[in-house]
């Protein structure tokens, strides 16, 4: 049943979503601030479980697209996320029963909440990545080969667009990215609508609850002066890859992505060992002695050793004391089709996925 999403969960969601962002996804700060502001104005959101959706319900899948730098100026405005949802309803001639996130990792975890607070629709406890990834073809809906159109896109100047048909997820990514760039590299989008049945079959379920659980574990550990990283690992069944300090960061942008690598020297139990993390917006592969230790789609999270706070690929820098943990990826991302879309080869690596959990 629909439960009111409590105000107290906003901060926990922000911490958890940032950790699930696996280095990317953009900081949730502005979205979190918006939701708090909406709650202060008396608005409320409701959270429903995907199991409560009827098979023929239609669900809006929302996200804010664009460059993190532009979002720092133009900010995040719930009005346009809500408008993207309404625009899609107008195009479809149907009403949505609920709203969900495309990406639980980073700021977009909040996008359905921001729209829902204005539209009085419930938010579904699910997303389509279970983490953050750079592009549309990285979603579980793309893995399920579901229909990738239509998409609605809204800019704050009454520029509204519908991408009514495309032949592939990659075309959808190219065209919607191009429109976004034209309107200033920031836009609110409502992706291809999903039926309740599709969400239940292909969505990654209960990820809002998961993010809040991670955030609460961190907050609680801080309150009682316990180790927040141990709390995260206990909560999620993750493993600690190593603890150490950042010794070098190398970044380049190619094709609009932030790529590069970060090097670490082990401390404590990992003393004397060297590790490398490679990233493409998100942390993708962890290497120890040049051998891949962990890799996408498993969630590689770089956390501040003291606070448990996530550290992004844009903000990692020399000298930071970090603990790198791996959280299990949703099963669907590790299917044959899943690995084709989000396994190491999808990001240009010449090796097959190997789980760090079965070693």
């Amino acid at each position: 049943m629909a439960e009111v999403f409590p105000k107290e969960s906003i901060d926990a969601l922000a911490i958890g979503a940032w950790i699930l962002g696996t280095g990317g996804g953009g900081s949730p700060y502005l979205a979190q601030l918006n939701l708090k502001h909406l709650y202060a104005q008396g608005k409320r959101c409701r959270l429903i479980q995907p199991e409560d959706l009827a098979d023929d319900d239609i669900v809006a899948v929302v996200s804010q697209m664009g460059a993190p730098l532009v979002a720092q100026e133009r900010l995040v405005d719930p009005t346009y996320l809500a408008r993207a949802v309404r625009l899609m309803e107008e195009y479809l001639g149907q009403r949505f029963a609920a709203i969900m996130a495309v990406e639980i990792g980073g700021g977009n975890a909040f996008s359905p909440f921001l729209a829902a607070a204005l539209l009085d629709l419930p938010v579904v406890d699910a997303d389509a990545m279970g983490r953050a990834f750079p592009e549309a073809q990285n979603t579980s809906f793309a893995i399920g080969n579901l229909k990738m159109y239509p998409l609605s896109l809204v800019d704050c100047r009454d520029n509204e667009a519908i991408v009514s048909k495309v032949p592939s997820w990659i075309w959808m990514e190219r065209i919607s990215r191009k429109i976004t760039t034209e309107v200033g590299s920031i836009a609110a989008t409502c992706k291809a609508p999903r039926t309740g049945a599709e969400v239940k079959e292909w969505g990654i379920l209960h990820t809002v609850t998961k993010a809040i659980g991670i955030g609460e574990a961190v907050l609680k550990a801080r309150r009682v002066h316990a180790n927040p990283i141990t709390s995260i690992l206990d909560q999620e069944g993750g493993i600690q890859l190593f603890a150490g300090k950042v010794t070098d960061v190398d970044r380049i942008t190619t094709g609009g992505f932030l790529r590069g690598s970060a090097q670490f020297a082990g401390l404590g139990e990992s003393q004397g060992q060297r590790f490398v993390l490679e990233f493409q917006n998100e942390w993708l592969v962890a290497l120890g002695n040049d051998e891949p230790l962990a890799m996408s789609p498993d969630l590689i999270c770089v956390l501040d050793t003291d606070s448990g706070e996530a550290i992004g690929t844009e903000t990692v820098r020399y000298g930071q004391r970090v603990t790198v943990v791996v959280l299990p990826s949703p099963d669907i991302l590790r299917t044959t089709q899943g690995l084709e879309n989000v396994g190491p080869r999808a990001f240009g690596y010449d090796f097959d996925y190997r789980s760090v959990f079965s070693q």
Partner: protein
Amino acid sequence: MKRIGIDVGGTNTDAVLIDGTRIIASMKVPTTADVMTGVVNATRGLMERDPSSGGSRGQTVDAVMLGTTHFTNAVVERANLERIAVIRISLPAAASLPPGVDWPADIRETVNPMIFMVDGGHEYDGRPLVPLDRKAIAKAAYRIADAGIKSVAIVALFSPLTTACEEEAADIVRSIVPDVRITLSNTLGRIGLLERENVAMLNAALQAIGRKTVDAFGKALSEAGIDTPFYLTQNDGTVVIAEVAAQSPVYSFASGPTNSMRGAALLTGLQDAIVADVGGTTTDIGCLVNGFPREANNIVEVGGVRTLFRMPDLLPIGLGGGSIVDLETGRIGPRSVGYRITDEALVFGGTILTASDLAVAAERADFGDRRRVRKLDSGLVRHLLDRTVTMLEENIDRMKTSADPVDLIAVGGGAFLVPDKLAGVARVLRVEHSDVANAIGAAMAQVSGEIDQVFSGVSRDVALAEAENIAKSRAREAGARPDSLKTIEVEDIPLAYLPGGSRRVRVRVVGDIAYGA
């Protein structure tokens, strides 16, 4: 070329008189409640100690450089802040998060900003977002005049890249309310609307106290017999003529630690080093790059307000000469006896075990009465001091940019807590006059010019060259002698999801003051 440097701290007012790079006299007097008496006392004391002045007082001094914590204190204490108006030019974007949305409630109530949000601003590539709504700005100006508000912050979308909207809005406001003081966000902050707006709003709220403080300093100096130009130290380690500095009080935030770092650089002649400024309660660790403090590239909270502008990259740790040692837990700091150390530390006859007592017991320092710490177990003392060393080593390493060993300069009254050998440190340097390094840094300060801008569609070389030219022209405007300009910082960061190989470029240049310019 004689100069006086004065750094007004919370506890002490430190002052030095220098001739070129030679230190003629130094003073440490208690900061007085009215501040200015302390400044007069320190200045008079310096003049009396100058053998060459022959009692002729201030005539031989070419400039006075003042560093002050007044403005930071006003924000932290929510005192002496004036009511402001803020005009944000960004609609229809950014409407859901109005100015001041992320301020703590108490400071928001104190400043009580009158808020206007109007159409306009630019995109990152210089295109206008929508046409500027000039009528709305004029309407805002009339309401500002009616409310009797004297200070206005103007903030436009992407103004660090395109300043036109803020400048035009300022002209409109000034034409309607001629005597109003205006802060343009592009002159202070960086990309990041809320954080830049916060800086502009704080700066606007500090206009009255800025004016008042500069007037009072002027009066204090003339009381001490000095009528030469005086400058305020800024948080990048340079100075600005006081009249101009009064318009940008936010640039004085954190100027104290910055002055210490500049002093450390000047006293050692080192250009690249880590500085540990060990005080009574905290140690500020900073990093000198080309002789200047490295800037923070992240959000810094001032009195609970998130800001993103030119602030030194400082890592404060809770370790100082007065840090309290808890024998049960083995914890050292962050609690401290602070300025009460001369009463409360064991070696001064008190009852509280402090970090200073450990240093005296281990014969690393020699003050107070060593007999009073004789019964401390030497193994325990060594163990506890090792912990302070680990704290220093870890945090020094955090401030380094690579694993290579660096030189470390130890300054401040608690510098004895820094041992001669530290992991990751090539040499530990100590300097004479280390206790007034801040005043020396102030006295020797130069002027600077800075740019922080996104460049698109041009090569890296072209972007860097253009940025350097702009920074140099800004330094000349700030009063630098053109032939003395030196580029001290160049940083460029490629940006994700933006077309045309966009990169953010930050360049800073410094030069000597052009006297009489």
